[in-house]
């Protein structure tokens, strides 16, 4: 059987261009815009929002990456769940998707691409999303992802910048997909790697739909820049600081052990270098730094909600099948650090 991760040049250790490198490029690039654009690239939000009428706006996103699991169908599922996630993180409803494919021809001939596309279809179907097109090129390293379009009410956009002092922070999926993807390459920690794969292809649909019935001050999905990177974006955007409680963080089985023994992807080191303003309490073991900076693929939603609604929201999420949903911290007055980890 084809082992897909052997085709990923970056050794499965997260293939993103580092945020500090990217920032240097984006500073020098013009971004055409007009008055209909409600959310653009500036705020580090998850998707773009474009007003069509007073009660309808388009919400658009795309994402693609190299294989992080060996099984083609699972890779397709993860890529789909990951690509759609940004729509949910904005509070939107995804409608259509288009496939983005770069693949080596021999793998296509072996039926691998067919499995990947069907894997994506599994997830899209379950979310009621129609596939309306796609584009493919021949490429030495397999890449796959989707461009997704949804709708949203222009006044009900969840930005990552609206968290208020006193808010509770809720995370809806376990942390540790980067560590577990690294463990997978090493053929160790079977339970954790299986849990991570399942988590990565689980849509944030149920979590987002449940949260629609509650007050949401800010929301983002936790992806490549890690809980710290995305947490910091929320803190900065909202002009507050946030506190993360490591004891409350939902994790995959054996994540602490895997991180302790050095199954830490290179992107974790990149995130730690790129994301400043993070303060760990002295009594926090250093392994938590590797967990908190772990790049997530298709991670959960991070929501800032009024504290009095938090427990009910977590309960409602559990009832909706979002079993990992946990209250992991709180929003505090802006201090010296953007994120306090204790």
């Amino acid at each position: 059987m084809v082992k897909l991760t052997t085709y990923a040049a970056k050794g499965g250790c997260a293939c993103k261009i580092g945020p500090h490198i990217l920032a240097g490029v984006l500073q020098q690039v013009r971004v055409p815009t007009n008055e209909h654009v409600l959310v653009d690239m500036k705020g580090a939000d998850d998707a773009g929002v474009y007003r069509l009428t007073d009660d309808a706006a388009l919400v658009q996103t795309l994402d693609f990456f190299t294989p992080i699991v060996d099984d083609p169908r699972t890779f397709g599922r993860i890529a789909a769940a990951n690509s759609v996630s940004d729509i949910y993180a904005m509070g939107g409803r995804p409608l259509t998707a288009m496939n983005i494919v770069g693949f080596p021809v021999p793998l296509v001939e072996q039926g691998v691409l067919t499995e990947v596309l069907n894997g994506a279809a599994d997830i899209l179907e379950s979310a009621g999303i129609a596939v309306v097109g796609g584009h493919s090129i021949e490429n030495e390293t397999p890449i796959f992802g989707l461009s997704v379009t949804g709708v949203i009410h222009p006044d009900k956009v969840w930005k990552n910048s609206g968290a208020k002092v006193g808010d509770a922070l809720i995370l809806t999926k376990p942390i540790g997909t980067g560590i577990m993807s690294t463990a997978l390459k090493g053929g160790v920690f079977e339970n954790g790697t299986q849990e991570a794969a399942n988590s990565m292809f689980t849509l944030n649909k149920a979590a987002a739909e449940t949260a629609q019935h509650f007050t949401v001050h800010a929301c983002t999905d936790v992806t490549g820049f890690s809980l710290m990177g995305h947490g910091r974006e929320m803190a900065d955007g909202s002009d507050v600081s946030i506190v993360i409680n490591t004891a409350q963080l939902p994790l995959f089985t054996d994540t602490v052990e895997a991180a302790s023994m050095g199954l830490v992807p290179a992107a974790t080191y990149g995130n730690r270098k790129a994301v400043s303003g993070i303060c760990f309490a002295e009594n926090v073991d250093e392994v938590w730094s590797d967990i908190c900076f772990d790049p997530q693929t298709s991670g959960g939603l991070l929501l800032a909600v009024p504290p009095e609604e938090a427990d009910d929201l977590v309960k409602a999420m559990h009832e909706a099948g979002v079993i990992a949903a946990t209250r992991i911290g709180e929003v505090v007055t802006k201090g010296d650090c953007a994120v306090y980890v204790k």
Partner: protein
Amino acid sequence: MSSKEVVVDVRGKLCPVPVIESKKAMDASPEAVIVTVVDNEVSRDNVIKLGKSKKYAVGIQQRGSAYYIRMTPPGNDIVANQTESTATVHEKKEIPEVGGRVLLMTKDYLGEGSEELGRSLMKTFWFCLTEADVKPKKIFFINSGVKMVAEGSEHLENLQALADAGVEIAACGICLDFYGLKESVKVGTITNMYVISDSMMTEAMVTL
């Protein structure tokens, strides 16, 4: 107490291979000192994490672009005492890549006897030096030795690699003139006999 040493050379390998290979070596020889050689900081830090999580005493040495992580299993006192450093990542020991020696190359083949053999030996010699952890500080070329740094030499690639690694390479000017090669130097600089003779008197020189 065993003082057996197992070397895991995983230079050129990306994560998680260095960790997994080191762990395999630990599992296979629980008594042994494991010396893992890596060539990037991520692998270095990850292997250190592995060693510490297994309660090994961890020492790190940097030689050139390579990191030698020496991990001594708990209870292996004899060897633990020999561990040169239990420094953490932030206190890495600096061992310069360039050693103190100066080479004087007097001809374009190595050793006495068959010149044909000597030419082939020379090629191997340069290759070995490019792979060596401790490299010479300078290499001077005199007489027919200068042909090795000039256009058409089969050693240019290896010599360039040495130059890139920080080794000073310089050929004698009169010698280049004599062979009509002054315009064809491809690696290093042109020097003179004052510099070379001064080095002979003041530095650790090996003549070949």
